[in-house]
């Protein structure tokens, strides 16, 4: 656990953390040792000479003061260190997230990472921070007390010591069995969440079929499965908790009985026995709290696990001596790329001469978008090489590579800010006039005219206040402003209504002029503007050539368009 915490924190905080842990251990030990002074105090008070307690009481008071100082220092330093670490963690995570390849950010990741970097980090750190001291105290203080007991009476001390190995074994076993149950519970949780999402999204259809909540068996099954899993978790934790309590109580009973026996036999004074029993009672409570703390630590652990997984994801390696490509022709040389256990691109070779346009056509799942992503190095290839201007993209620094490429995605994300800010992202140093010119070329002006604040209009989180086509136009303006020699277009016009489509096409036409272009296309109108077409299926090039040439050939490509062509005939 500590090891994982250290790994998540990173080496620079390891030493601080260790120092804090040591301070906490010393504090816990001091607490246990201070109880040693209870023995003479109680012996005096319970014995015949209560007045003798005075000096011992003063000594105990001094010990408590010492403990108080230690504790205060350890608490305050803990807080200081904690906040520094929190800041460090935010920075570490932030830097790391920024370095991870875009390919790493799948659809599910976005939500997951947002939650983790927001609440999760804080939760992990604070739970850990808050549990560490009690956990150390619950282990160290009783152990110290047992040592004190041993010093005063080895028989009673030994009896108490018997609890230690049993407690250790129980702790370890419980951790193991609950980990399994937790994992299963987590699985069921995910499954049920999936069902709920499905249930919500399919509401219209489900209602049409007369299946409301109670009657949708798939959902109800998974909800019941969830309860079964939670019951199993309880069953997995219960033996540990009961076992711990049983052990601690049994040992306490043994000490009580043994103490009574020894006292009756006269081999130990009544005051000593009673004092040791008071100490034994002091031992029992922290030990009993262990199962509670243990449970909470497991909760923190799962947060840490998630953090650890993210922090261990490898960013794409940066070249040590980056090369700057001079030309901007593009080339795939025997590229193979696997993702999620599937070969997405399968030994594919192709090249696009500088200034030419390549259209990529094919059924969904053929690997079209992946081609673009490999060019922009969202992922690294498993075999072969992707080259820009004859240079392997892995040998180009990310910044230089990105400066070469303008991408217009199918889904456009806009930052919460004004339209102008979002366009300017393409080239932060651009002049006012350049920004305006790009916006005009992308036919953004009518959008700006429609919005209440014009240029200064806020686009909302993720661009929510603009329609899909309007966002697309902002992103084209952005790409125009960037003025990069290589342009990648991903099914840009497939999600547009006719008006937007016309506007976007105009913008695209301007964007493509004089540049090296790779475009994924679904519409023949787009394809016809390309110099060359490749038809992709299963990650391989099935056919390639000019549009007309391929149609004449009457193969897969021609077959692909046949449907829409025949559809148009009847229309």
């Amino acid at each position, binding site marked *: 656990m500590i090891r994982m915490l250290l790994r998540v924190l990173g080496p620079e905080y390891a030493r601080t953390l260790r120092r804090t842990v040591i301070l906490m251990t010393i504090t816990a030990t001091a*607490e246990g040792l201070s*109880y040693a002074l209870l023995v003479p*105090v109680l012996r005096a*008070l319970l014995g015949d000479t*209560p007045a003798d307690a005075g000096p011992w*009481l003063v000594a105990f008071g001094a*010990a408590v003061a010492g403990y108080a100082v230690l504790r205060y220092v350890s608490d305050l330093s803990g807080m200081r260190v904690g*906040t520094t670490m929190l800041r460090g963690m*935010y920075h570490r995570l932030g830097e790391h*997230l*920024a370095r991870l390849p875009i390919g790493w950010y799948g659809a599910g990741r976005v939500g997951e*990472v*947002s939650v983790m*970097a927001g609440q999760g980090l804080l939760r992990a750190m*604070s*739970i850990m*921070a*808050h549990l*560490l001291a009690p956990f150390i105290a619950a282990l160290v203080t009783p152990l110290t007390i047992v040592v004190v007991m041993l010093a005063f009476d080895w028989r009673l001390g030994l009896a108490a010591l018997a609890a230690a190995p049993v407690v250790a074994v129980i702790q370890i076993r419980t951790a193991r069995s609950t980990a399994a149950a937790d994992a299963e519970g987590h699985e069921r949780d995910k499954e049920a*969440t999936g069902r*709920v999402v*499905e*249930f919500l999204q399919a*509401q*219209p259809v489900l209602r049409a079929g*007369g299946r409301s*909540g*109670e009657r949708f068996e798939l959902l109800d099954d998974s*909800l019941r499965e*969830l*309860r079964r899993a939670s*019951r199993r978790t309880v069953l997995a934790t219960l033996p540990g908790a009961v076992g711990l309590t049983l052990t601690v*109580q049994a040992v*306490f009973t043994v000490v*009580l009985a043994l103490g009574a026996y020894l006292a009756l036999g006269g081999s130990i004074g009544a005051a000593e026995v*009673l004092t040791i029993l*008071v100490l034994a*009672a002091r031992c029992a*409570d922290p030990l009993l709290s262990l199962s509670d*703390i243990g449970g909470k630590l497991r909760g923190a652990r799962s947060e840490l696990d998630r953090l650890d997984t993210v922090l261990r994801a490898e960013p794409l390696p940066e070249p040590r001596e980056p090369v700057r490509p001079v030309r901007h022709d593009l080339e795939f040389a025997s590229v193979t790329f696997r*993702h999620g256990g599937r070969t997405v691109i399968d030994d594919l070779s192709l090249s696009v001469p500088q200034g030419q346009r390549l259209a990529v056509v094919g059924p969904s*799942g*053929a690997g079209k978008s992946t081609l673009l992503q490999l060019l*922009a190095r*969202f992922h690294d290839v498993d075999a072969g090489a992707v080259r820009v201007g004859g240079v392997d993209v892995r040998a180009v620094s990310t*910044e230089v590579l990105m400066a070469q490429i303008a991408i217009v995605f*199918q889904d456009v994300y806009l930052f919460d800010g004004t339209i102008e800010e979002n366009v300017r*992202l393409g080239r932060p140093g651009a002049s006012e006039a350049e920004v305006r010119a790009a916006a005009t070329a992308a036919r953004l002006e009518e959008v700006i005219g429609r919005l209440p604040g014009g240029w200064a209009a806020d686009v909302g989180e993720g661009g929510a206040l603009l329609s899909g086509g309007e966002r697309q136009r902002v992103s084209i303006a952005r790409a125009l402003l*960037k003025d990069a020699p290589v342009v990648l277009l991903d099914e840009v016009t*497939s999600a547009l209504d*006719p008006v*937007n489509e016309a506007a976007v096409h105009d913008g695209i036409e301007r964007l493509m002029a004089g540049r090296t272009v790779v475009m994924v296309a679904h519409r*023949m109108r787009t394809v016809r503007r390309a110099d060359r077409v490749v038809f992709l299926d299963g990650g391989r090039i099935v056919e390639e050539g000019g549009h007309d040439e391929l*149609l004449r050939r009457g193969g897969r490509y*021609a*077959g*692909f*368009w046949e449907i829409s*062509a025949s559809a148009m005939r*009847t229309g």
Partner: protein
Amino acid sequence: MRPSQPATATGPVTATGPITTTDSAIGSATATATGAAATAGSPAEQGLAGLLRPYAWSFAGVVILQVIGAVAGLAPLLAVVELGRALLAPGPIDHGHVWSVVIAGAAGLFVRLVFTAASAGTGHVLDGRVQLAFRRRLAARLGRVPIGWFSRRRTGELAKVVGQDVSAVHPFIAHAPGELVSAFVVPLVSLVYLFTVDWRLTLITLIPVVLAVALVPLLMLPARTREQEEFDAAMGRIAGSVVEFVQGIAVVKAFGGSGRAHRAFLSAADDFVATFSRWVRGVSAVAAGMQLALSPPFVLLVVLAGGAALITTGGMAPADLLPFPLLGLGLTAPVAALGHGFDDMQAARRAVGRIRDVLAVRSLPEPAHPVAPRGHRVELRGVRFGYRADHEVLRGIDLVLEPGTVTAVVGPSGSGKSTLVRLLPRFFDPSHGSVTMGGVDLREIGSRDLYRTVSFVFQDVRLLRASVADNIALAVPYADRDDVIRAARLANVHDRILELPRGYETVIGEEAGLSGGEAQRISIARALLADTPVLVLDEATAFADPQTEQAVRRALATLEGDRTVLVIAHRLETVADADTVVVLENGEIVERGGPAELLAGNGRFAAFWRSHRSALADEAGTETGAGTETGAGTETGTETETETETETETDDGVSRGGEPR
């Protein structure tokens, strides 16, 4: 390292008594601000009480078991006390008495073990039952709210209410009742006992508790409350900036150097940490002081000093001292309990709030006396509608959809097309005017009748993780396999289904995934199978591939006859097929008529058409080029799509772009 130290302000970690508190940092931020007052009688808890009423007896059982167990836990301590009395008593020791005391102590421990275990066990079982009941109630409620209500919420958030939020109630149910009650009952019993032993020393024993409580007001100073607010705000900024950072990562990277979102995140984090440390600095001294006051060594010091004074100045028998160091420590439990699991409790309270919000949503008003529609002529009269009061999306729509005709709606995005067609399946009720079917207002038609009459194919198709056949037959649960197959053929997806590992029995999302276009075709098959007299179709724009386009066209062709069809058309080919075209702009119908007629006129539609004529010419040109009759492109269906675009992602498909296709 305890950045969370202030948490202990109200929840010091005293390893004493039946309660061992380990509350975490952040919650107690609020803890200090709202104090103990928040624990009782907040509306959330009242709501919770209402939901829990059916389980009152079981809860009482859990609490009683826990209290008995906790009180029995005092027995061994009392046994030590009695042992002390027996041993310290002048004269010969009564062996029999000593052993019976030891046995009583052991018995007490055993009772404690059995009862607390039983309480915890039943508590958790009860928790499971309550959670299941909550989730079922939520599901039932969500199955009845107006469909339009969903469109304003993220599915992921709702799923979180049913999943995590219900789980978050756990401490309320399984832990809080028993532990809180025993945290007060046990010290009370001890206190009464201690008073009977020696009232003076009892008062002295209470000194640490009084000290700790006296410090509480210092944690509730206005400055602290303000810091608390700043703290919440800073947390909110972190959450906001991280979403922007992560969602926009592709843009940030693709446009190189900017690093804008990254910086925003880091500065939000720094802000937060600064606020956090300010707040920590504010409360840390006080919190540490409380910690110390309640710490066992300090309590013991006070008790023993008081005891020494009382014994030496006479008046107190030494044996009477013994109960105080043993039981006195437990008196701090209530103070500790106030902060117990405050973080969890706060989270639970918020979760309950969200659960209640969902349960409080009013379901779509069902007519008291449902009227069956007579025929399926659809008429919209003066329909106005807005999602918000200040912004109307539809501004006076009059439209008649005759049976046996196809009506195409065209218009720029944001013109209200989607909203208009969603009125037919009654996802929303219009704010003014009426929608009638067969002469009956939709609001007077029972929902079962309505959904038997209207079916719809929308763009955002979601398939269930169930077999393909079940997915197609969703609206017609007992459909014949032959009918299912016929619908699938018509929807151009039959061949693709046969390629799946187990054909129609293949479970989507588990054994195979379908592409967006294929999912859309399944949904068209669904509508074809449902065979309702009214069909609403939002023509696909995303994921549109030639096969899907053809499926839509076939569906429209097949459905002719007596059906009423309303389609949002994105393709001019579809428009050309329609009987009537309606041009929507800014929530108003600006033009209507037959496609040829509108084209001949020189209005908006003609402008539309012209702006696309070049495109059409482009594509029509290929018609001659592709003249060779290659068998209809069914062979393109050989794609092996393992990516599950239909999988149940909770983020409403935030960035599909990042995933390799």
